[in-house]
């Protein structure tokens, strides 16, 4: 471990020290506000530390980590999302349950796990990062243990995630058996010809895919997602939807690009099929969904189906578009879940779409943010989602993935229906007009999100240039 290693690990060290310090604070006094303030500070610090790291990239901390611009971008996204989720969580958690402070400990562990995933280039760091993230997520999902929903979601998540981890491990084991290396680059160099992978390696990859596909909730590993989305507290759902998925996508991309998986026909076809099926399944399932969280879960299945296109494109443009897409997806999803969690605070549970009836007349700002989020998810211009989809499709068609692009288009149409349904519901008048006020910080989060969505949607060049210039 050199000094440079430590500098480059600064964000991680900050994120890792946060749980310890919070724990120590708790031993002195249980004060949620202190913990909250400290959490925000730590996220802020770790975000700033990214700029400290930036000059030294790319830096490899053998054998587990590689800190390059790609991971730095994902880190930035994760920490930014973590910051916003902290605010949402505080507003949400401070109103319910007991032992609120531990929540932030776990939140940091989750963020740490996700960050590790982003920089991992070794099976061990991959596995540990994934598990750190998963275990914290089990806890967070079931955090409000007085609710049976939470517990049910937690149990389901735990069981299926463990199964997926077992598959993942078994797959890693097989790959390790075949190649004798656990480092991505090592694996890649030991693979030999990609056009004819040995069956054991293919089996290994498929089992690895289970682990990744489970986290990204690709069909057929998607079934847990709606239940967990629904059962988890709203900010936690936001966490799963953004940080967890973003981090897993990051490692999936890194691994896939390192081994050049798109060059293997079997993998290519299988992933294309999964992509297309995920798009259709997700969107079709969301169609009649009356529960907003479940609907977003299904929509996220579809979105990650879209994102597979970037993997299959196998080009730098694919990676850039993936980063842009995930950034815009995260900001958008945060918008949606931000509203859900803020509303859940104000007026009980805000799961059902019916709860949003007439929101426009109760709280126009929230309704507009929600509409923006929905339109962004649907990929309508002026929003981030449009540009993201544009980059994605462009990367796809540049690599000749017309079929995938075409099914993306069809699915965008299907998805419109349910996104619009949410929007429409908010604009229908309902008789029961409860004025709802959000805390200042909540409003601030929404403002940030709106600016983010619109900024990415109108002036995407800045961000996409940053993405392009870094890698």
């Amino acid at each position, binding site marked *: 471990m050199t000094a440079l290693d430590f500098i480059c690990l600064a964000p991680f060290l900050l994120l890792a020290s946060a749980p310890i310090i919070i724990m120590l604070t708790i031993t002195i006094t249980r004060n949620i506000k202190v913990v909250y303030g400290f959490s925000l500070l730590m996220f802020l610090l770790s975000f700033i530390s990214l700029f400290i790291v930036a000059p030294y990239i790319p830096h490899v901390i053998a054998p587990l980590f590689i800190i390059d611009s790609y991971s730095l971008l994902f880190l930035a996204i994760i920490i930014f999302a973590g910051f916003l989720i902290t605010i949402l969580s505080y507003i949400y958690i401070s109103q319910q349950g007991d032992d609120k402070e531990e929540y932030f400990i776990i939140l940091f562990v989750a963020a740490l796990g996700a960050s590790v995933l982003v920089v991992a280039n070794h099976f061990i760091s991959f596995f*540990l990062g994934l598990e750190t993230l998963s275990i914290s997520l089990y806890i967070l999902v079931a955090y409000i243990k007085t609710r049976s929903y939470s517990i049910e979601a937690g*149990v389901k998540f*735990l069981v299926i995630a463990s199964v997926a*981890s*077992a598959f993942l491990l078994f797959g890693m084991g097989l790959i390790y058996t075949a190649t004798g290396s656990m480092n991505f680059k090592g694996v890649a160099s030991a693979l030999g010809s990609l056009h004819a992978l040995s069956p054991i390696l293919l089996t290994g990859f498929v089992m690895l895919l289970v682990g990744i596909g489970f986290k990204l909730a690709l069909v057929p590993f998607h079934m847990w997602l709606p239940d967990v989305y629904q059962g988890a507290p709203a900010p936690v759902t936001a966490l799963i939807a953004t940080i967890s998925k973003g981090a897993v996508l990051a490692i999936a991309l890194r691994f896939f690009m390192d081994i050049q998986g798109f060059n293997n026909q079997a993998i290519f076809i299988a992933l294309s099929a999964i992509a297309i099926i995920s798009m259709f399944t997700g969107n079709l399932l969301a169609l009649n969904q009356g529960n907003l969280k479940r609907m977003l879960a299904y929509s996220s299945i579809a979105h990650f189906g879209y994102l597979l296109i970037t993997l299959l494109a196998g080009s730098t443009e694919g990676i850039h578009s993936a980063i842009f897409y995930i950034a815009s997806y995260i900001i958008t999803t945060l918008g949606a879940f931000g509203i859900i969690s803020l509303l859940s605070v104000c007026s009980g549970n805000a799961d059902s779409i019916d709860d949003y009836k007439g929101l426009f007349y109760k709280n126009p700002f929230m309704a507009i943010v929600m509409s923006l989020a929905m339109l962004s998810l649907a990929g309508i211009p002026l929003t981030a989602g449009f540009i993201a989809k544009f980059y994605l499709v462009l990367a796809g068609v540049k690599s000749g993935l017309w079929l995938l692009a075409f099914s993306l288009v069809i699915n965008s149409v299907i998805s419109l229906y349910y996104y619009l349904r949410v929007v429409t519901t908010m604009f229908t008048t309902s008789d029961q007009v409860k004025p709802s006020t959000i805390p200042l910080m909540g409003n601030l989060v929404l403002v940030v999100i709106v600016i983010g969505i619109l900024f990415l949607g109108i002036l995407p060049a800045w961000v996409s240039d940053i993405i392009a210039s870094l890698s």
Partner: protein
Amino acid sequence: MVTVSLEVQILFAGLLFLIGLVGLLVRRNIIFMLMSIEIMLNSAGLVFVIAGSHWAQADGQVMFIFILTVAAAEVSVGLALILQMYHHFKTLDADALNTLRDKNER
């Protein structure tokens, strides 16, 4: 020492994995499901150890230790969840956990 072919050894691990899997798919008792998962994780660890000794590297065993750690953490959280589940649902039947759904979904 052992001269059994690598194929058989991995297959043995695979069989264990499948036994765990079948147990998971068949048992409704959540505790048994957790046990099955332990079998699966263990078998995955076994693969690493086998491969590690095949390649004469310590890495396989290191990985096993991490798997062990994770399994322990998972089990502890899992068992805690089972306690809560029993508390809420008054049963260990995994199939009883189906309250999360929308009205449109049967």
